[in-house]
C-alpha cells in the first residue's frame, strides 16, 4: 500500500492505475529482491523491474502478458495453492494481500504500462490547480492551491489560522529557534490585528534577516554533515572543525545559493584560486571519523572514510541509499556495485589518510566578517604589514641591541647612582605621598588605580640613566614594595619629563620581573599591561617578591638636569589596588651595566658564528622581551583584531587532491583488500539511471556541478522535501532519505515539483523557500485536533491542520536560555562546555576534559556545545540528537522518561529556571496576590507567548503559595533554590518558590512544543 491517502484514491481497482503510485511499490517490496536489478541475487533469470524482460517470451509463456492477466505467469504463480511454486516464496516471509493481487491483475489487464521510477523522471512544469471559488479566500500563495485542492477532493476543510501568538511563537521557533520576547508578542499581535498579511510578511523577513537564522538552519545542515568536535572510535580525541560550522552559519545567513553552497562544500578546493572560505567549506567531507587507535591500518580507515563520503553525498543530495551497493548491487534500486565504486572514484584521491591531513589556518571570527568594518579591516591590514616589516628588520635591531649591551657591559667603572631629592609630590587620587629620611617616597592608600607625579630638585650631573627602586616597608602588606595584599604591584607606565617635556627612552631593564609582566611594559605606551614582581614559572631561583627591586631606564642622549627639573609619572592602570607602595629614584651619568643574568651574558659573549641554537634561542627571547617597537606593533594588531571580533587562530581540516590519483576497483563484498581486477580499473562516473555527466572531465568538482545541474531530477526535490519536513514534521515524500524505489511516493507530487522548480528558478534561494512556506496559509493553520479530520485522514497526510512538534534537542536548550534571560547571543567560534551531569565519563575509555565554562560561554546556544562522539553531551542525545557517526538527514522524535528526568533535574536546566525566576521577580514587583498573578501572567507570556487561562493561573498560584510554605520551614533549601540575584524586597522562600514555578513551566509539554 502506498499509504492511506493513495490507497483511498485507488479504492476502485478498475480505474486507471498508475505504475509508480500503485504497482511499483508492490513489486519493489515483494518481488524485486529476487527479480530486480541485482543480477547476483536474481532467480530464474527473470526481472520484473524491466518491462522488456518481464514480457519476454519464455518457451511460449511470459511472466507478464500485457492486457491479459489470466495468461501471465506471475499471476499464475501468485494465485497457485502449491506451496512449492507460490510467489512470493514462504521463506521470504512476504505475501501479497488480496488488494495487492487485485491491483496487479487490473494493471496487467490494463496493458501493464511501466513508468520509470517517479524520482528519476525530470521535474515537471506544474501549474497550481484552480480551486472552487469559495476556497480562494483561504489561499495565500500557490502552496495552498496544491494542498487545498486535495482537501477539496477529499471533502475536507483546512483548519482556521492559528492565533497570532501561536503563529508568532511557531515562526520564531522555526526560523531562529528562540522564544519571542513578550514585547514582540504584543507588537506583533497589534500589527496582526491591523493587517495580518503585512505583519506575517514583515515578521518572517525580520526573522530571516536575523543572524540567528543561520544557527537555527545551520544545525540541520550540520546533522547532514555529521559535524562533531572529536575524531570518533576508540580514542575520540578532540578535533578542530568549528570553522566549518562558522562557514555553514555564514553561508545560510548570506542566503548563499544552494548550488554554490553545494559546490563549495563538495569541491571548493578544486575551484580556481579558492578563497579561504571555499577551502573551509570542504570541511563537509572532513567530518568523517578518524581511528587513532594504536595498530590500525590507515588504509582500511581511509577506505571507510571514502565509503562514508559516497554514502553521505548520496543521502544528502540524491536522497538515495547507496550504502548497500558497497557490498553488492542494490537489490531494489538500479544502482550497481560498479556504479557505487565509480562514485567512490570521485572521492578516492584526497590527501588525508585516516589523519588530520591538510588544513587551513583560520582565526576565530574571521569567517563571520561581513565587510561592514572596512575601515578597521584596512587598519588591521596596515598594522599587519607593519609587523611584517619589523619582522624583516628584526635581525638588524637585534644586532644593535647586542652592541649596546656589549658596550654597556665592558670595561666600565661601576655605575655611581645619585639619589634624587623630591620637591613636589602629587597623587591623582587620594593617596598621601610622603618623603622619608632617605629621600624615598612612601605612598598611602589611595584610589584603586593611582597615578603618582614626582618632581625632583635639579642635580649637577648629566643624566644618562635613571633608576627606579621599589622598596619594602613595614607599613605595606607583606612588607611591600607594592600595596596589593601580597605586596605586589603592577606599574603600567613610567614617563620621564625633562623641563615638562616627555623624554624618549632607548631601553629599559630590571633585576627581576614577574613572568608575563616584563619591565618593558612600562615604556610600551600601553595601559593594559605592566611591570610586576611576583614569582612564577620561569622566575630565577632564589629571587624574592617582597624585596627591593629596580628598573633602569637608559636615555639616547644624556639629559642636562642641572637646569631642567626632572619629573616622573608612575601610572597604575591594570589591576585595582596594585599601586607601588614605596620607591626611590636615582640617576647616573653613565649607562649602567646590564642586569641580564649570567647565562645570557655568557651567550652574548660567544661570537655569533660559534653560538649554539640554545644560545641563539636565549638571546632572541631576551631581545623579544625588550623589543618595544615590535611589541607595540603587535599590540596594535591585537587591539584591532579584538575590535573586529577576531580571536585565536586554529587549523581547520580541508579536502585536497593528490597529485597522482589513486586507482579504484570494485571491492569484492566491500572488502578493500579484495580488488576486483577482473572488472578492472574504474573511472569516476554517475549512475546510469540519472542524467549523464557532460564533458570528459571527471573530478569531484564535475560531480558537484552535476549534482546541482537543473537536469538532475533529485537534488532540488530532495532539498525542498527536507525543508518541508522541518516545518510539518513529515516530508511530502515521507521517506526523506529514500527517493529510491522502496521509498514512499509523494503525498503531493505536483507540489513537490512546483516547489523544486520554484527553488531553482529563485536562484536556489533557501530564504525564498522558507518565506514561501511560512507565509502560506497551509503553514499558518492551527494545529488543534479536529475529530472529523482525524477520522478521514488520521495521519494528517493532507495537511488539513498543522502538526504539533516537539522541538529539537538543541532548541530545547536554546528556548530555556531565552526564557531565563541568560542566553549569550554570540555567534560562531570554538565549542563551549556548559554544565553537564557528573559521571558522564564513567563509561568512556579516556576521561574527556570538561572544564565547565564560566561566564557567557556557559549560556551559549546548544549547537556550540563541544560534541564528543564517544560521550556526547547527555541532554542532546536524550532528546534524539544523533551521535554524528554518520549522516543524519532526519531525526526521530521520542518521548521518554529520561527526557523527563533531564528537564526536571539537569543542572543546566535548573540554572535556567533560576534565571527565569530572577527575571520574573525583577520584571513584576510586589508580593500581593495580584502581583503574583501578574507574575504568572508574565511567565506564561515568556514561556508560551500567551496569557494563562483562569484555571492555569489558579493552579500555578496555588502551587507557588504552597512552595512558599514548604521553603519557609527549610531556609537552607530555600537558599539553594532561590536565584542568585533577586530584589531585596522578597524573602528567600518567596524567591525560591518562583524558581519552583519557573521549573514547572519549563517542564510542561507546551514549553518544548512548537504548536
Amino acid at each position, binding site marked *: 500500500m*502506498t*499509504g*492511506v491517502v493513495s490507497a483511498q484514491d485507488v479504492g476502485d481497482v478498475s480505474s486507471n492505475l498508475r505504475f509508480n503510485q500503485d504497482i511499483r*511499490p*508492490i513489486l519493489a*517490496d515483494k518481488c524485486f529482491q529476487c527479480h530486480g536489478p541485482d543480477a547476483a541475487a536474481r532467480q530464474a533469470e527473470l526481472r520484473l523491474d524491466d518491462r522488456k524482460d518481464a514480457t519476454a517470451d519464455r518457451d511460449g509463456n511470459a511472466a507478464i502478458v500485457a492486457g491479459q492477466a489470466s495468461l501471465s505467469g506471475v499471476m499464475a504463480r501468485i494465485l497457485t495453492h502449491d506451496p512449492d511454486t507460490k510467489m512470493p516464496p514462504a521463506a521470504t516471509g512476504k505475501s501479497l494481500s488480496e488488494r495487492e493481487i487485485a491491483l496487479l491483475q487490473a494493471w496487467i489487464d490494463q496493458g501493464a504500462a511501466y513508468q520509470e521510477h517517479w524520482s528519476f523522471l525530470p521535474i515537471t512544469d506544474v501549474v497550481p490547480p484552480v480551486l472552487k471559488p469559495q476556497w480562494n479566500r483561504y489561499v495565500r500563495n500557490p502552496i495552498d492551491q496544491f494542498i487545498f485542492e486535495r482537501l477539496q477532493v477529499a471533502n475536507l476543510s483546512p483548519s482556521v489560522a492559528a492565533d497570532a501568538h501561536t503563529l508568532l511563537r511557531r515562526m520564531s521557533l522555526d526560523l531562529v529557534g528562540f522564544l519571542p520576547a513578550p514585547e514582540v508578542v504584543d507588537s506583533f499581535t497589534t500589527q496582526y490585528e491591523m493587517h495580518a498579511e503585512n505583519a506575517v510578511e514583515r515578521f518572517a523577513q525580520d526573522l530571516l534577516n536575523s543572524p540567528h537564522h543561520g544557527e537555527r538552519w545551520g544545525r540541520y545542515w550540520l546533522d547532514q554533515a555529521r559535524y562533531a568536535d572529536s575524531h570518533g*572510535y576508540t*580514542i575520540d580525541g578532540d578535533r578542530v572543525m568549528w570553522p566549518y560550522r562558522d562557514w555553514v552559519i555564514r553561508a545560510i545567513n548570506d542566503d548563499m545559493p544552494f548550488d554554490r553552497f553545494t559546490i563549495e562544500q563538495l569541491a571548493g578546493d578544486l575551484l580556481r584560486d579558492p578563497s579561504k572560505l571555499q577551502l573551509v567549506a570542504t570541511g563537509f567531507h572532513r567530518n568523517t*571519523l578518524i*581511528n587513532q587507535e594504536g595498530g590500525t591500518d590507515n588504509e*582500511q580507515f581511509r577506505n571507510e572514510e571514502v565509503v562514508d563520503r559516497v554514502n553521505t553525498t548520496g*543521502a544528502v543530495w540524491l536522497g*538515495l541509499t547507496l*550504502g548497500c551497493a558497497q557490498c553488492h548491487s542494490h537489490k*531494489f534500486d538500479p544502482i550497481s556495485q560498479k556504479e557505487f565504486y565509480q562514485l567512490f572514484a570521485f572521492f578516492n584521491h584526497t590527501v588525508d589518510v585516516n589523519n588530520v591531513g591538510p588544513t587551513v589556518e583560520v582565526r576565530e571570527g574571521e569567517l563571520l566578517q561581513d565587510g561592514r568594518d572596512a575601515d578597521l579591516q584596512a587598519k588591521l591590514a596596515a598594522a599587519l604589514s607593519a609587523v611584517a616589516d619589523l619582522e624583516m628588520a628584526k635581525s638588524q635591531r637585534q644586532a644593535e641591541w647586542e652592541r649596546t649591551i656589549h658596550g654597556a657591559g665592558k670595561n666600565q667603572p661601576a655605575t655611581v647612582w645619585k639619589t634624587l631629592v623630591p620637591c613636589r609630590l602629587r597623587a591623582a587620587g587620594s593617596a598621601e605621598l610622603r618623603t622619608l629620611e632617605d629621600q624615598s617616597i612612601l605612598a598611602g592608600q589611595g584610589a584603586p588605580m593611582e597615578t603618582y607625579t614626582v618632581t625632583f630638585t635639579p642635580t649637577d650631573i648629566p643624566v644618562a640613566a635613571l633608576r627606579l627602586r621599589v622598596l619594602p616597608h613595614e607599613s605595606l602588606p607583606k612588607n611591600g614594595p607594592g600595596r596589593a595584599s601580597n605586596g605586589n604591584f603592577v606599574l603600567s607606565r613610567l614617563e620621564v619629563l625633562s623641563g615638562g617635556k616627555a623624554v624618549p627612552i632607548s631601553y629599559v631593564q630590571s633585576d627581576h620581573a614577574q613572568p608575563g609582566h616584563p619591565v618593558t611594559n612600562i615604556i610600551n605606551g600601553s595601559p593594559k599591561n605592566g611591570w610586576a614582581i611576583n614569582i612564577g614559572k620561569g622566575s630565577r631561583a632564589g629571587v624574592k617578591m617582597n624585596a627591593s627591586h629596580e628598573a633602569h631606564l637608559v636615555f639616547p642622549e644624556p639629559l642636562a638636569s642641572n637646569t631642567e627639573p626632572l619629573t616622573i609619572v608612575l601610572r597604575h592602570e591594570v589591576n585595582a589596588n596594585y599601586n607601588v607602595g614605596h620607591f626611590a629614584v636615582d640617576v647616573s651619568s653613565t649607562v649602567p651595566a646590564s642586569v641580564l643574568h649570567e647565562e645570557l651574558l655568557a651567550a652574548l659573549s660567544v661570537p655569533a658564528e660559534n653560538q649554539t641554537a640554545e644560545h641563539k634561542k636565549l638571546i632572541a627571547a631576551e631581545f623579544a622581551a625588550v623589543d618595544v617597537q615590535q611589541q607595540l606593533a603587535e599590540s596594535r594588531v591585537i587591539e584591532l583584531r579584538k575590535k573586529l571580533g577576531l580571536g585565536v587562530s586554529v587549523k581547520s581540516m580541508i579536502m585536497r587532491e593528490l597529485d597522482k590519483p589513486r586507482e579504484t576497483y570494485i571491492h569484492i563484498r566491500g572488502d578493500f*583488500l579484495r580488488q576486483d581486477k577482473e572488472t578492472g580499473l574504474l573511472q569516476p562516473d554517475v549512475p546510469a539511471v540519472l542524467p549523464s555527466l557532460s564533458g570528459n572531465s571527471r573530478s569531484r568538482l564535475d560531480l558537484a556541478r552535476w549534482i546541482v545541474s537543473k537536469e538532475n531530477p533529485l537534488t532540488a526535490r530532495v532539498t525542498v522535501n527536507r525543508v518541508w519536513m522541518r516545518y510539518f514534521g513529515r516530508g511530502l515524500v515521507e521517506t526523506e*532519505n*529514500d527517493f529510491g524505489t*522502496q*521509498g514512499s511516493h509523494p503525498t503531493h507530487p505536483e507540489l513537490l515539483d512546483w516547489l523544486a522548480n520554484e527553488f531553482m528558478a529563485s536562484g536556489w534561494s533557501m530564504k525564498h523557500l522558507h518565506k514561501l512556506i511560512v507565509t502560506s496559509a497551509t503553514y499558518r493553520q492551527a494545529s*488543534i485536533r479536529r475529530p472529523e479530520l482525524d477520522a478521514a485522514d488520521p495521519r494528517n497526510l493532507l495537511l488539513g491542520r498543522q502538526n*504539533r512538534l*516537539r522541538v529539537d534537542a538543541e532548541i530545547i536548550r536554546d528556548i530555556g536560555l531565552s526564557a531565563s534571560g541568560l542566553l549569550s547571543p554570540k555567534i560562531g567560534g570554538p565549542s563551549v562546555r556548559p554544565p553537564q*551531569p557528573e*559521571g*558522564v565519563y*564513567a*563509561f*568512556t*575509555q579516556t576521561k574527556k576534559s570538561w572544564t565547565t565554562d564560566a561566564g557567557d560561554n556557559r549560556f551559549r546556544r546548544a549547537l556550540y556545545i563541544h560534541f564528543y*562522539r*564517544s*560521550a556526547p553531551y*547527555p541532554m542532546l*542525545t536524550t532528546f*534524539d540528537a544523533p551521535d554524528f*557517526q554518520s549522516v543524519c538527514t532526519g531525526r*526521530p522524535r521520542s*518521548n*521518554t*522518561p529520561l*527526557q*523527563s528526568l533531564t528537564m*526536571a*533535574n539537569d*543542572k543546566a536546566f535548573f540554572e535556567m529556571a533560576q534565571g527565569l525566576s530572577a527575571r520574573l521577580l525583577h520584571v513584576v514587583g510586589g508580593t500581593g496576590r495580584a502581583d503574583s498573578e501578574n507574575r504568572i501572567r508574565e511567565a506564561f507570556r515568556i514561556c508560551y507567548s500567551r496569557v494563562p*487561562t483562569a484555571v492555569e493561573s489558579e*493552579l*500555578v498560584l496555588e*502551587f507557588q503559595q*504552597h512552595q512558599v510554605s514548604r521553603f519557609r520551614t527549610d531556609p537552607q*533549601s530555600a*537558599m*539553594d533554590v532561590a536565584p542568585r540575584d533577586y530584589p531585596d524586597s522578597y524573602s528567600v522562600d518567596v524567591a525560591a518558590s518562583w524558581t*519552583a514555578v519557573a521549573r*514547572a*513551566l519549563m517542564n*510542561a*509539554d*507546551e514549553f518544548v512544543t512548537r504548536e
Partner: protein
Amino acid sequence: MNIERDHTRRHFFRDCSVGVGAMALANLLAEDGAAINASNIAAPQQCHFPAKAKRVIYLFMAGGPSQLELFEQKPQLQKMSGEVAPDSFFDKEKSFAFIKKGATLLGAERRFWRHGQCGMEVSELLPHLGTVADDICMVRGMVTDVFNHGPAKLFMNSGFQTPGRPSMGAWVTYGLGSESRNQPGFVVLQSGPRGPRAGNALWASGFLPTTFQGVPFRGTGDAILNLNSPAGFSSDQQRDFFDLVGNLNQQRLDLTGDPEIATRMRAYEMAYRMQTSAPELMDIQSEPRHILDLYGAEPGNNSYANNCLLARRLIERGVRFVQLYHTDWDDHGNPGQNIGSALDKRCGEVDRPSAALIKDLKQRGLLEDTIVIWGGEFGRTPMGEVRKSLPGRDHHIDAFTMWVAGGGFKPGYSYGRTDDFGFGVVDEKVHVHDFHATLLNQLGFDHEQLTFRFQGREYRLTDVHGRVVDEILT
C-alpha cells in the same frame, strides 16, 4: 511499501514510548500489575517462535581476554614456545594490530584442570568458574572480523564495525519490549580501571528509537544521570512539581487533543517512579550476608562483583538486557596489562562474581530463561608480545573463547576445536554473526526477520549473515 505497518509501529512507539515495549504497556494498563498476555497487545514485534529465554546478562570483558591462559590448553604451543611462528600465520595481508612476521610463539604458563561431571577444561586462574562448569556452554571456536578494539567492540555489539547501528541490547529490547514499570529495558554497568573503548556507540540504539538505547547505571553516586532532584527540593516538593506539570499538561491535552501529550504525561510519571525506586534497586546492602559473600560484593564499591549482583536485581525487576563492561583485558605486556600478574588480578576480580551470578540465578530458578554471556571483543595471539619485559599477546580474531549459560544453551558442553597452537579454528567455528543469530533464536526471534527499515533498507543485527548454531542448544 510499508507505510501502513510503519505507521502502526510508530504509533505504537508514540503511544507507549516511555522506554518500554509491549509488556510494559500491558503492565501500565493493568492497574494491579497483573500479567497480561502480551499477544493481546499490538506489539511491534511478535516473537517468531516460542522463546527459551526472556532476558540477557552480558558480561563483556573489554580488551580481549586471552583464551590461551584461561580456556585453551595447548601442549604443542608450550613445547614450541620461543620458536618463530610459522610464516603461514602471516598469510593475510594485515591481521594483527602490532606484531609482525618473525614473532615468536609463547606457551601459556598456566595449569588447567578438568571440572564438573562434564570434565570441562578451565585454567587455574578461574577456579570458581570450574564450580559451575556443568552449567555453562563453552564456545571455543569463536571468530570475528576486526582486530582493533573500537571497531571490534562495535562489531561484537552491533554486527557492524562502524558506529551508528543499533546494539544487540537495543535490538533485543526493540524485539521484546521491557517488563519493567520503573526501569529502562536495557541497562549498562561498568567496572575496571576505565570505560570501554568506543563508549556510547556500544549501547546506542542507532536508527532504532532512542527508547531502546542502553541506559548507563553508575555503581556509586547517582545511578542514572539526573536521577536526583536539584538541591533544595524535598521529595514532597518533587511530587508537587510532578503534579503541577501533570495538571498543566492535562489542560493542554484537553485543548489540543494531541495524544503525544498523554505520552509525555506517562513519561513524567515513569520518571518519578524511577527516581523513587532507584535507591532501593541500587541498595545492595539489603541483600543477606551470604549472598554478598557469594559474589564477594562490598556495598559502596564500584566493582564487578557489585555489578553482577546488581544485574540480578535488575533482571528481577524486569530489565530485559543488562550489559556489564569490565576493563581492562588488553594484555599486550604492559604494566597493568599483561598475561602475568595483571591477568591474575583481573581474573581475581571476575571469577567469583561470574560464578556466583550463575549459582544465584540458578537457585532462584532464573537461569532457565536468562542467558548469561561472558566474553570479549576478540582473543589473543599464540605469538607473544613483549613490552617493558612483561609477557603479553596481541589481538587475535581467528580463534577465541566465550561462554554462555542458561536460556536453553547446552550446559556442561564445549563446542569448537582449534589447532595445536590455538591459532585457527579447525572445527565447529562460530562467527560473531552466528552468535548473534543464535542469541536471537533463543529469545524467540528469527534473526532474518527481526528487522527495522532505515534509509530504504531492512536492517538486522546479522546484516546478511548468520547461522543459528543448533549444536549448542538444548
